[in-house]
């Protein structure tokens, strides 16, 4: 049984199965002589070998195969795969096809962010074990979120052919593009969704946040004009500014014994932070005036280093995605062809796009028939593992006076700040805090 007394000088905090995260993982924290001796984010979701079974498949199969890595962010996998292949074959997808890809990504961000804000993360702040218990006291919040998530679903459904694992994306564009009339019904839904996002941001802003600011190296895409989805340089808050093809020169992965997901780090720097908070810090001035205003009214500055406030940032990004979707639909004109022609060639292709949880890097080596010789896929949760462990170490060290039960809950919350997607990363949640 968990103790309600303050954590002793030596104790183990354990969560054997982390709830409200995607996939199977656990947390282990050992406190020895009043100091944090060991922190492990254990990912025991089995390895999934996607990179291996992509070998020998055609380039055209990569978007649909990799989409199967995740039921929450399949669009991200499709986008990174398509851009990597197009990079390999020297193709640029522009105009309305490019805009439709952004629209599809808006749908996925809305779905994923709203699910996390209301169903996975809000119960932590409001003191409920899950969204079902929360729904009894906060039915309007849950209903609002379900409706908002549905708006995202309807974008993905319309453009992708279905809500989960969309089937309409191909290298070069789409199999079929919608008519303007088909997109029109989304306009009213998105106008409502814009207002609903503002309400959700207000709810998030009213929560109580632990006083916990860290000195992170944030990494995100940055585009000259846009809040990033599919294009831009990979930039960091400590000076990295590179195209996707230089990713391997600056970033590396290592195996650690306690995790089935490789840990990423920046060569010569160490742990880094990807996801909504990183994007926000590196791209605040690329947000729309309405999203900037909503962020300010929610008490966020142009930068924010408290990971617990990611819930507000997800709300701001949801608002922005609704606005961006409306803009795209308003200006839409059906393109003459649903995709551009692809001519395979011997090449290596690199793609990096902004999945809801942060940058998702794909690299493919291809032969002259477009057959994949080898593949590397680095999902956002792999990249965040080290920083999650750092947060746990620092958070426990600063909060040793908290009762063990409360500390354990806060640790779990600290993990959920990152909305980790363990299925994606295994290519991981249980929680243990040990004091001896």
């Amino acid at each position, binding site marked *: 049984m968990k103790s309600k007394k303050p954590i002793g000088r030596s104790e183990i905090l354990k969560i054997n199965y982390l709830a409200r995260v*995607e*996939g*199977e993982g656990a947390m282990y924290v050992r406190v020895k002589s009043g100091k944090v001796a060991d922190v492990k984010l254990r990912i025991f979701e089995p390895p999934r070998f996607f990179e291996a079974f992509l070998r020998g498949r055609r380039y055209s199969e990569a978007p649909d195969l990799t989409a199967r890595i995740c039921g*929450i962010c399949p669009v991200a996998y499709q986008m990174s795969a398509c851009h990597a292949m197009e990079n390999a074959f020297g193709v640029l997808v522009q105009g309305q096809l490019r805009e439709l890809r952004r629209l599809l990504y808006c749908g996925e961000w809305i779905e994923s962010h709203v*699910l996390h804000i209301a169903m*996975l993360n809000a119960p932590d702040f409001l003191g409920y074990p*899950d969204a*079902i218990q929360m729904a009894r006291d906060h039915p309007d919040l849950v209903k609002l979120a*379900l409706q908002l998530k*549905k708006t995202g679903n309807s974008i993905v459904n319309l453009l992708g052919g279905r809500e989960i694992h969309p089937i309409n994306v191909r290298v070069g564009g789409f199999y079929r593009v919608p008519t303007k009339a088909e997109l029109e019904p989304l306009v009213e839904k998105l106008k409502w969704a814009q207002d609903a996002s503002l309400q959700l941001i207000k709810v998030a802003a009213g929560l109580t946040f632990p006083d916990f600011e860290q000195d992170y190296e944030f990494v995100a895409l940055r585009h000259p004009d846009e809040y990033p989805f599919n294009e831009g340089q990979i930039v960091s808050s400590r000076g990295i500014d590179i195209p996707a093809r230089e990713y391997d020169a600056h970033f590396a992965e290592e195996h650690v014994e306690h995790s089935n997901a490789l840990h990423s780090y920046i060569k010569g720097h160490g742990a880094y932070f990807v996801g909504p908070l990183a994007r926000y810090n590196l791209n605040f001035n690329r947000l729309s005036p309405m999203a900037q205003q909503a962020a300010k009214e929610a008490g966020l500055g142009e930068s924010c280093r408290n990971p617990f406030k990611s819930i507000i940032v997800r709300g701001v990004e949801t608002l922005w995605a609704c606005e961006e979707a409306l803009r795209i639909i308003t200006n839409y004109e059906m393109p003459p062809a649903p995709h551009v022609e692809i001519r395979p060639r011997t090449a290596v292709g690199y793609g990096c796009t902004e999945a809801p949880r942060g940058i998702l890097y794909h690299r493919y080596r291809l032969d002259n028939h477009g057959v994949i010789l080898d593949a590397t896929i680095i999902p956002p949760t792999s990249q965040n593992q080290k920083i999650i462990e750092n947060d746990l170490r620092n958070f426990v060290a600063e909060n040793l006076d908290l009762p063990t039960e409360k500390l354990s809950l806060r640790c779990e919350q600290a993990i959920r700040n990152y909305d980790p997607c363990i299925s994606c990363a295994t290519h991981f949640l249980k929680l243990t805090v040990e004091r001896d």
Partner: protein
Amino acid sequence: MDYESGMPLIVGIGNEFRRDDGVGLEIVRKLRPLVPQAEVQEASGEGAELVELLSEHNAVYLFDAVSSGAAPGTIYRIDSHKEPVPTKFFHYSTHDFSLAEAIELTRALGSLPRVLVVYGIEGADFDPGVGLSEVVSYAVDDVIKQCLAELATVS
């Protein structure tokens, strides 16, 4: 899509590419021509979609495979107004929420349909592949008979 229908809603849930997980889909496909008075849908089991379907119909019958450890082919009939749906029956994902959680969330929101019956069929084989195992396919006809009798009393 018209969710305001007064007709009973019949929903099959599952993945036909994981053998017996497709039993719910098989049942509603066979039911479809037999129940012109009902709306028949197939669903992946995504929680938010289910909450919406449940919230907007008066009578809902759900069909899904179960993995409870009982003998394969065992048929469970759960009247959701009389008992909660055991989460272990239908848990399929940790990030999104399952059928059982969708029903409990709808109950917490006070939006359960007047009639909500869940048929669960214990599967034997959830490995990748197409086609039901023999013992589960026998249960399909039994469930259909039960459901038709039940629908006859409602209408």
